[in-house]
């Protein structure tokens, strides 16, 4: 199962036939396993890894540290869910350390992200403070390197 998940995480677009061959499984059995993983919520979705810089220079990604006051009974969950539901929020994690949430926000411009932070995020009652870091360049995302590695220069035939 772990191997199947690794393969899908590397390339969810791979054909079921190719996956089945690698895993030594009949295609039907593979389909069942994937369907089960989807049903159990282990697989949450399939996405493309997009190099935005090749498309336009305007997209802005921000990593926002958020400190919040936990609630009696609910801890961080209710506020975190409230933040995560905004469409601008791409990822949201509860983390250890000097602040509580790291929120990844994407927007069409700097202004758009700034206004999200000042109008939506900071105004939530339990939010104590935010610190916004803007992405300058991507080197690697979800396991995909954005810079090319060593080119193929092996001998075409070797013993």
């Amino acid at each position, binding site marked *: 199962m772990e191997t199947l998940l690794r393969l899908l995480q590397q390339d969810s677009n791979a054909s079921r036939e190719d996956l089945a*061959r690698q895993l030594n499984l009949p295609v039907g059995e593979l389909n069942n396993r994937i369907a089960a993983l989807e049903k159990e919520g282990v697989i949450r979705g399939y996405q493309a890894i997009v190099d935005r810089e090749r498309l336009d220079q305007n997209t802005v990604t921000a990593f926002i540290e958020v400190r919040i006051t936990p609630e009696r009974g609910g801890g961080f969950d209710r506020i975190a869910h409230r933040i995560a539901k905004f469409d601008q929020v791409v990822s949201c994690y509860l983390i250890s350390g000097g602040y509580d949430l790291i929120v990844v926000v994407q927007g069409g411009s700097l202004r758009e992200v700034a206004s999200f932070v000042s109008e939506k995020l900071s105004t939530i009652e339990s939010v104590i403070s935010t610190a916004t870091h803007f992405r300058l360049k991507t080197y690697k995302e979800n396991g995909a390197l954005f810079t090319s590695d060593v080119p193929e220069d092996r001998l075409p035939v070797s013993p």
Partner: protein
Amino acid sequence: MEDKIAAHVRDIPRSGIRDFFEIVQSMHDVISLGIGEPDFVTPWHIREAALFSLEKGRTGYTSNLGLPKLREAIAGYVSRQFHVDYHAPSEVLVSVGVSEAIDIALRALLNPGDEVLFHEPCYVSYGPSITLAHGKAVSIPVHGKDNFQLRADEMARRITPKTKALLLNFPTNPTGATMPREALEPIAALCVQHDLIVLSDEIYAELTYDGAEHVSIAALPGMRERTVFLHGLSKGWAMTGFRVGYACAPAPLIEAMMKIHQYAILCAPTMTQYAAIEALEHGDAAVAHMREKYGLRRNFIVSALNEMGIPCPTPRGAFYVFADIRATGLTSREFSLRLLEEQKVAVVPGTAFGADGEGFVRCSYATSLEQIKIALQRMAVFVAGLKC
């Protein structure tokens, strides 16, 4: 000038693989399943260790036997992985790839005319290395019906009073064969009975699949004292270009090998030795990652070959399948040349690995799955065309 070349060198035929390489190199857009080295770039943390050693200015010679810390790392790894204990200061020698270690071991052991047994089909260098050390190379054929394992009865038949050593390579290039403990035991018994030295090239030891456990012959009772355990970082850690290998053996033999090594080579490259320390101490996860990838590709290639009517039992080691092409009616060379010309796919004729490789071709899966997929599609077209 020809007449000046030493007779025993002149008489060694050109490598069949070299021949084939030149044809492939003259063509464009060839997809090659003929490559005998990993397609992975050396894991970054290992490359980084080499860079760090350069930054620190560690650019001088090391001791002839290799960095003490590396020899400790080797002894530790061999003990942990293969359950054989060696004394790092006196029983471990760091060489320039396993090839050098084989060469100096043979030169240290052989008197002119001594016979060395080796199983064939095999890696291209064994026969010539024995010859160059003034030994007599005696091949033992291994067969597809035995999963290319070495059989004790075939070996016994070739032992003479002049037999000095046996050269083993499991998992095997080019067949992918592995030897489980019960297959090694009768071989070990013969070596004890006839007082033979074993040179065991275990360069593919990390690359076994389907839970096949690699057993070193050195770990069998009574074998440590007569075995030269040969290994290196090239295949498992994807470090072919680093050229770092090692030999573990009883101290008197290491001492003898060191005499040759110190005058011929002096020491293995220093930055490479630092990279090797990192690889052995922290490389397990990277090796496991590559092994998983090879295993998946192996499944893919075996299933596709069988489907196109090329019988191919699933090999359990290295990164090669030795495909049986006898049903096509072509010789290994004809098959390989026509596949290359008609579909631009390079495989290596089995005969490059010895006459007993006739009827087979070696396909390497140390190539990306995308390339393997296209290569096998083209191969299927070629094979289907032969049957019309």
